[in-house]
């Protein structure tokens, strides 16, 4: 059966989709949240294993070329599934402690992940759109998960309205590109000879849609409010998995559909990259809320990643993939620790000053937070440093010196706001009224593994960078 083979081509997505349906039924008819959690974890772990295996050579097309999987797409799937797995594990403890542990969370996360997996392997504008929508709709729901929390509801509504608006831009762009080229396949759009106004309008609108999804300045306004209002583990999911998926899809659109027009969109991305780095970092300096600070920091990171896209070579794309990997590890970790501190005093316990002296109360958590934040700054020997180094190096090779200068200055400024958290953790008197509960084994083990990976790939990035470099012409 040919159609069965096609389903096997994107096995991780199929597994996750099936798990989503299964979990939904388990929730309705068995009503056991623990069972739902275990099922979700197992299926995600299985899909992650298969996706990791897929990075080494498995590739293929399915559904008349609507989907191409393997290489870069498989790596994107790995990033998404790491984000999902960690989110699921951290969510259990976090949601139990904050009293909103319902099974729908897991099915929503799984369906969102399904959308992301389709998104990273899309080779057609329609598949791309379906992936983005499946992902986004689940994220809108997840942002408003805690129904009685005003900020969460505000976040969900804001995210939904702005997200729907940006999807409109994306869809108009796709429609115009289809009108100009007569095809929705990315590779067919690349072969268009006569590039008229319709084509350029389509490209511009498509870029706007993607800039919104990766929260590049000036389309970033939703990010701080949504990241602050959403439950922290869900914020981690939005910041890592959905952003990685959007970036991988962005790479495919740029490299497959618009390679000829590189001179033009290269300049556009150059401009947006500078804006994103400068404004993201400057606004992060003045934030007193850790979640908001991390939101602006994720905007700033999007700016660094855009440097790689502006360079637009295969080396730059593989540097971007490495950066996304490091970004995923350290953001999941940092949000995990923020979520852990939130257990104790409710959902508003995220101000920087709340953290005074907490570093010594649970030393392991304090040390882990330091590792993740130092990695975000980009200090060796952490993975964040290698990511930044490789992106900057690829840009220098392409002669984008000014961009790299701005990037280095911006990341020097970022030291202030990351270290401010650490200074509060370690150098301020703690409130004697706060006692920290020791986190569960699964929770702390997950965070320790993330930190270990952050250090491992900072010290010994060679294997991964070789693998990423081997993805031929980034097209598969």
């Amino acid at each position, binding site marked *: *059966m*040919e*159609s069965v083979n096609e389903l096997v081509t994107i096995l991780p997505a199929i597994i996750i989709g099936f798990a989503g*349906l299964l979990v*939904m*039924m388990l*929730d*309705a*008819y068995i*009503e056991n949240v623990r069972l739902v959690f275990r099922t979700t974890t197992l299926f995600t772990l299985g899909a992650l294993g298969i996706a990791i295996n897929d990075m080494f050579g498995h590739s293929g097309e399915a559904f008349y070329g609507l989907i191409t999987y393997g290489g870069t797409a498989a790596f994107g799937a790995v990033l998404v599934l790491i984000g999902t797995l960690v989110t699921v594990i951290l969510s259990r403890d976090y949601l139990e402690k904050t009293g909103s542990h319902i099974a729908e969370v897991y099915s929503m996360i799984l369906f969102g992940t399904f959308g992301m997996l389709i998104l990273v392997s899309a080779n057609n504008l329609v598949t791309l759109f379906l992936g983005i929508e499946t992902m986004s709709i689940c994220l809108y729901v997840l942002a408003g998960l805690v129904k009685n929390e005003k900020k969460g509801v505000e976040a969900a509504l804001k995210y939904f309205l702005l997200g729907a608006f940006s999807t409109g831009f994306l869809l108009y762009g796709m429609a115009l590109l289809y009108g100009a080229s007569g095809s929705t396949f990315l590779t067919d759009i690349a072969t268009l000879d006569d590039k008229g106004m319709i084509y350029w309008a389509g490209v511009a609108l498509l870029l706007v849609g993607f800039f919104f999804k990766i929260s590049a300045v000036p389309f970033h306004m939703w990010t701080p409010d949504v990241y602050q209002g959403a439950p922290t583990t869900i914020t981690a999911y939005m910041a890592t998995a959905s952003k990685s998926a959007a970036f991988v899809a962005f790479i495919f659109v740029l490299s497959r559909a618009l390679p000829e027009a590189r001179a033009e969109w290269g300049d556009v991305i150059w401009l947006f990259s500078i804006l994103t780095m400068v404004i993201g970092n400057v606004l992060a300096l003045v934030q007193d809320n850790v979640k908001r600070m991390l939101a602006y920091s994720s905007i700033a990171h999007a700016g660094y990643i855009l440097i790689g896209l502006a360079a637009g070579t295969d080396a730059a794309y593989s540097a971007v993939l490495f950066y996304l990997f490091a970004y995923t590890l350290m953001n999941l970790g940092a949000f995990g620790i923020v979520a852990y501190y939130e257990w104790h005093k409710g959902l508003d316990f995220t101000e920087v000053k709340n953290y005074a002296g907490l570093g010594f109360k649970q030393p392991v958590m304090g040390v882990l937070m330091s590792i993740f934040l130092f990695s975000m700054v980009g200090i060796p020997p952490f993975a964040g440093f290698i990511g930044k180094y490789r992106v900057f190096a690829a840009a220098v090779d392409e002669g984008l010196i000014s961009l790299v200068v701005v990037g280095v200055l911006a990341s020097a400024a970022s030291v202030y706001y990351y270290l401010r958290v650490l200074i509060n953790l370690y150098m301020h008197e703690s409130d004697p009224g706060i006692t920290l509960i020791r986190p569960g084994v699964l929770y702390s083990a997950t965070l320790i593994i993330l930190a270990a990976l952050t250090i491992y790939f900072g010290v010994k990035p060679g294997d991964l960078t070789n693998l990423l470099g081997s993805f031929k012409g980034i097209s598969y």
Partner: protein
Amino acid sequence: MLEQYIPILLLICLAIILAVSFIVLSHVLGPNRPNSNKLGAYESGMDPIGQARDRYSVSFYIIAMEFIVFDLEVVFIYPWAVRYQEFGAGTFWSMMLFIGILFLGLLYTLRKGTFDWDLVHSRAKKSSY
């Protein structure tokens, strides 16, 4: 030139004839026992006069959502059914998969109490809404 549209004209005529005859026939044949409820404007069982910004049951929204889902399902099934001969057996199982997934969704909402209008005696957990 315009001859090709004659079937459409016939269809329009047929529709008008049917609509008129149904109204006339029910007037002539049906029993006529009016009361104030029957003579009032029909508004899905609600009081049609009052503030527009009134609160009403969330069930209306949920039923409307269910309706849209299954209405759109038909939009997909219809062209598939018309061209089925050309497509062959593979598409049959694809469509069964599609309908099956939608059916699971229906089972889910059923269990969660979407169609329980009598919320007091509902089996579903109260916390669902």
